[in-house]
């Protein structure tokens, strides 16, 4: 309901204050502008510093005398060369890309299937099955039992444990389900049925092509989740040589915070014996940000809609 309301109200005259509204005071306007600009700066400046540092040469960094700089006086691609030179960092990036792609595919199969399967109120066992899914919003099984189950399945120290345990997100499922229920016209489905199409045909030929945008958003949500995997890797796969990129980043960070015991951890990720340079670390940060920033405009375009359907309709 809310989504259609918003859409239908959108085509108003752009950028004009409505006639009944009086102009706010200058002070109010300035405060507002200052607030927004400060807030945005607090997000932009660190990110800019990260990017700038990742391209800075050793000398420029030393001259700046810190971990970060805002304007590299001398550019260098050494950090990126090191990342992509085929060492442990390259392996980690490749692993994370494979995990993200594979995990997203599996998650989408589960989510689409259940969202469509549960989109017909009144079908056999519809209510109890839906309850089984909604219950996951209320309770969490706990870290230790989940860990035990992963162990019992023999998935400990296996990359599958980074995908299967969180392959299904009930929130995404409910969002997609309400889209199928509310935005795919029942008349079309009925007509297809009249023509003798089975459910699978209807799903693949009719419903999915109509839901491309929301499917893309949900896929991107899953992709971001898999890309950002850290906790599960710490918990389920501590013994593997090649770790997801977030774990590698964390180890690099620890190694320069000068903490006892951290250095040995980080050592195996270094091509040289020295602690990672600030530039190298920041280059890894950039590598973990770039995919998100690339996906971001697309998520953003469709995502408010998904949030409204999910959060307000519940």
């Amino acid at each position, binding site marked *: 309901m809310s989504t259609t309301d*918003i859409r239908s*109200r959108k085509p108003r005259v*752009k950028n004009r*204050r409505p006639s*009944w*509204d009086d102009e*706010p005071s200058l002070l109010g306007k300035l405060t*507002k502008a200052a*607030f*927004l600009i400060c*807030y945005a700066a607090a*997000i932009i400046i660190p990110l800019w510093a990260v990017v700038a540092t990742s391209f800075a040469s050793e000398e420029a960094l030393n001259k700046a005398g*810190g*971990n*970060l700089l*805002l304007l590299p006086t001398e550019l260098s691609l050494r950090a990126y060369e090191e990342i992509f030179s085929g060492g442990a960092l390259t392996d980690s990036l490749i692993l994370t890309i494979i995990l993200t792609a594979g995990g997203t595919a599996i998650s989408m*199969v589960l989510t689409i*299937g*259940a969202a469509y*399967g*549960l989109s*017909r*109120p*009144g079908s*056999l*066992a519809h209510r109890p*099955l839906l309850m*089984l899914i909604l219950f*996951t919003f*209320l*309770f969490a*099984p*706990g*870290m*230790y*039992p*989940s*860990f035990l189950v992963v162990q019992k*399945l023999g998935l400990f120290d296996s990359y599958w444990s980074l995908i*299967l345990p*969180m392959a*299904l997100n009930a929130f995404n499922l409910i969002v997609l389900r309400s889209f199928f229920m509310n935005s795919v016209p029942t008349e079309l*489905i009925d007509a297809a049925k009249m023509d003798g199409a089975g459910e*699978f045909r209807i*799903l693949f030929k009719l419903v999915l092509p109509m839901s491309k945008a929301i499917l893309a958003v949900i896929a991107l949500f899953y992709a971001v989740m898999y890309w*950002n995997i*850290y906790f599960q890797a710490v918990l389920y796969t501590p013994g593997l040589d090649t770790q997801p990129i*977030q774990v590698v*980043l964390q180890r690099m960070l*620890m190694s320069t*915070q000068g903490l006892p015991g951290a250095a040995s951890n980080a050592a195996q990720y270094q091509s040289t014996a020295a602690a990672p340079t600030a530039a190298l*670390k*920041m280059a890894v*940060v950039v590598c973990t940000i770039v995919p998100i*920033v690339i996906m971001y405009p697309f998520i953003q375009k469709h*995502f*408010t809609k998904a949030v*409204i359907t999910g959060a*307000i309709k*519940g």
Partner: protein
Amino acid sequence: MAALKTSALPAAGRAPERPRIGRKQTVRQRLRHDWPLLVLTLPALAQLAVFFYWPSSWNIIAFMDYSPYRSFWENPFVGFAWFERLFSDPYFMPALVNTLQFAFAQLLFVFPLSIVLALVMHSVISTRVRSVFQSIVYLPYFFSWVLVVTVFVQMLGSDGLVSNWLLGFGGDRIDVTADPDSFMFLAWMQWSWKDAGWGMIIFLAALSSINPSLYEAAAVDGASRWRRMWHITLPGIRPVIVLLLILQIGTILTVGFEQYQLQREAVGYQTTEVLDTFVYYRSIIGTEGESFGTAAGLFKGVIGLVLVLVANNVAHRLGEQGIYQKS
């Protein structure tokens, strides 16, 4: 409309796409009709069964003296012994207190910030300015905690950018990122940086569903900007505020693992220990057994469940919709 619906469609209501003859269809008939839907749902149900319901049922070992070297039924039931042990554990109470502190701090300081951000953003007339700021403000929501902590250490750590500026101006180095006393402030900055934008988006969506003619009517009647905000805007987004509050209260003991685990070494465990890190460090990589860790997790899960149900009930009493409707 309603009259048309009931008169034109005899089987009005839940499944208009399928001719239903009351409830006379047998299960077998319905199965023949609905099996593709069930098959499609099956993979997701299997995933839930294995990774949600199976571990959930393993919580029973919180009431047993569990040992992995015995067969399951040989483990003796010990009642609430593990919970007693838990509450007498010298590290558990501090972890619980920390958890509650962080949770309430989030409710008090981050939640309102999202609302303020949304209100300010909503009052910006220019759509271009709005979309640029929105994109910036909620970008960090998609970053991992590792990334957020890294960026904060680089900015605010002892060798960070801010320290360097302060040195440049003749000041002293600061290190907010390794100081237990200021950890709450640091955590607040991190939550705001990472999550406030996300909350803002939800509130903005709620704000844009308020009927603009209400504002117009109020303005014509002479209501000032502030009065319009108080009497139209805030009541308009109240259901969403309540909904998010309930969801937050339900997850009050789940303040997250990563943020605290990542800063544990720098800040010290006394300040950063929360229930999840407690389970991890004491039970999974520590020496306390399975039952102990399970009991701690179950305590968290049950309190969370009770809190959601209570909060939702209170919301209903106050006349709000809550997360699920009363049927």
